C-alpha cells in the first residue's frame, strides 16, 4: 500500500514525500531496529533509480543548464529527483517489512492477498533451500581450493582447463540440486502429498491489527491528498 501510494503521488510534491519519509522513520523506531537500519540498507537500491538519469535531458521544458551538448530542463530534473526519492522511500519501507515480518508471516500475507498457491509455495521453498544450496556451492569451492596446490612447474593450468573445471562444478551443483528436489518430493509424497499444498487457516485479525490498518490507510490517504492539492 505504501509503495502504491508513493508511486501514485505526482512529481514534485515535496511535502508529501517528506511525510512518507517521516513515516518510515517512525515505523523504524517502532520496530526497534533503529532509524538508521533501513536507511543504510536502502542505498543499495539507489543505482536502480539511475535508470531515470536521462530524464533531465529528455523531458521538454524550461532550460536551466547546458551540459556538453545537452540541455537540462527544470521539469526533467524535478521528475528525476521525485523518482529517486519515491523509490528510495519505498525501498526503505520494503526493507522494514522484510526485516521485521518473519518470512512465514509474509507467506501468510501473500496467501491472504490471493497470490496463487503454487507461487507462494515456490517462494517458500526458495527461501528454505537458498541457504542449503549456498552451503553446497561453498563446499564445492572449498574442495577445489583445497586441491589447488602450487607444484614445482607452472601452476594454475590453462584458462580453458580452468573454465572446464568451473563448468563441471556448476553442472555438479545443478545435478545435486536436481537430485535434492527429487528427494524432497519423495519426502512430501511419503507424508501424503497429492499435488495440492495445504495450509492452516490464517491467524485471526485482532483489534489492534485492524486499528493499525485503519491508521495506515488514513495516513496514506492524507498524504495523497496533500500531494495532489499542494
Amino acid at each position, binding site marked *: 500500500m505504501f509503495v502504491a501510494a508513493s508511486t501514485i503521488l505526482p512529481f514534485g510534491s515535496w511535502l508529501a514525500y517528506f511525510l512518507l519519509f517521516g513515516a518510515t522513520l517512525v515505523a523504524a523506531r517502532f520496530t526497534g531496529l533503529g532509524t538508521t537500519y533501513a536507511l543504510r540498507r536502502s542505498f543499495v537500491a539507489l543505482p536502480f533509480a539511475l535508470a531515470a538519469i536521462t530524464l533531465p535531458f529528455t523531458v521538454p521544458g524550461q532550460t536551466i543548464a547546458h551540459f556538453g551538448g545537452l540541455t537540462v530542463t527544470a521539469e526533467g530534473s524535478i521528475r528525476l529527483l521525485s523518482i529517486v526519492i519515491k523509490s528510495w522511500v519505498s525501498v526503505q519501507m520494503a526493507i522494514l517489512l522484510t526485516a521485521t515480518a518473519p518470512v*512465514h508471516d509474509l507467506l501468510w500475507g501473500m496467501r491472504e492477498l490471493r497470490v496463487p498457491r503454487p507461487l507462494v509455495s515456490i517462494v517458500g521453498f526458495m527461501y528454505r533451500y537458498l541457504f542449503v544450496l549456498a552451503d553446497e556451492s561453498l563446499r564445492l569451492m572449498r574442495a577445489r581450493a583445497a586441491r589447488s596446490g602450487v607444484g614445482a612447474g607452472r601452476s594454475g593450468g590453462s584458462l580453458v582447463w580452468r573454465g572446464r573445471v568451473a563448468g563441471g562444478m556448476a553442472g555438479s551443483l545443478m545435478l545435486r540440486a536436481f537430485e535434492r528436489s527429487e528427494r524432497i518430493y519423495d519426502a*512430501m*509424497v*511419503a*507424508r*501424503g502429498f497429492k499435488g495440492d499444498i495445504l*495450509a*492452516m487457516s490464517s491467524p485471526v485479525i485482532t483489534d489492534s491489527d485492524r486499528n493499525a490498518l485503519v491508521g495506515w490507510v488514513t495516513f496514506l490517504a492524507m498524504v495523497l491528498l496533500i500531494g495532489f492539492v499542494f
Partner: protein
Amino acid sequence: MHHTIEVKDLRFKYPDGHEALRGVALSIAPGEKVALVGPNGAGKSTLMLHLNGILEVQQGEVCSCGLPVRKENLGKVRSAVGLVFQDPDDQLFSPTVFDDVAFGPLHMGLAEDEVRRRVRDALAAVDMADAISRVSHHLSVGQKKRIAIATVLSMDPEILALDEPSAGLDPRARRGLIKLLRKLPQTMLVSTHDIRMVAELLPRTVIMDQGRVVADGSTPQILSDAALLEAHGLEAP
C-alpha cells in the same frame, strides 16, 4: 493388530538397468525393532522406499500394516508407515518447524485443532517443543533429525522406517537419539551402519547384500558371527 511388514520376493530394477532388489523376503511382527544392515548399494534404501509406496512394486509383493502397497491403498499406507529420510534437509522443507510437523496431519485431512495438538505432542515426544516456531535452517543436525522424526510421529504411524538415523551425529546427539528411539513404541525398521547402536537398541538384525537378504536373526547371534559380518563388509562391534 496389523503392525506388520510383509515383503515377498520383491524385485526392483532402476531405469538405468541396475538391479537393486533381487528377490527380497522379509516379515516383521507387530512391535518388533529390526535393524537393516549391509554395505552401501545393498538395496537397503530401495527397500525402505517400497514400504510406503514411494517406489512402485515392479515384481513381488509388499504389505504394510496388512494392506498391500498398491495405488488404491497409498493414502492409508502412507499414514501408517512413517518414513524418515537420511538427510533431514530433504525431510524439512517448510518455512518453519511447525509447518513441517503439520504437513502430514494436514494431508490426512484432520481438523485444525487436532493438527495443532498432534504437532505439539510430536514435538514434545522428541524433546523439541521449544523449536515449534523456529526456522529449520538454523537448527543443528541433531535437532533437525529429531524434528524429522516428529514430522512422521505427528501422523501417528504404526511403523517407523528410519534411514541412517544416527549418521552425521556427534556422540551426544547420537546418545540422545538412541534414547529417543528406545522410548518410541512403534514397530521399527532401522537402516544403518551404526553396529554399536544396533547392538544396543535393536533385538533383531537383517543383513542385506547385493539386493538380497543374506542373514536374519537375533542381533546377539548375528553380531557374534565374525565370518558372516566379514563376508558382507561389516565390522563386529
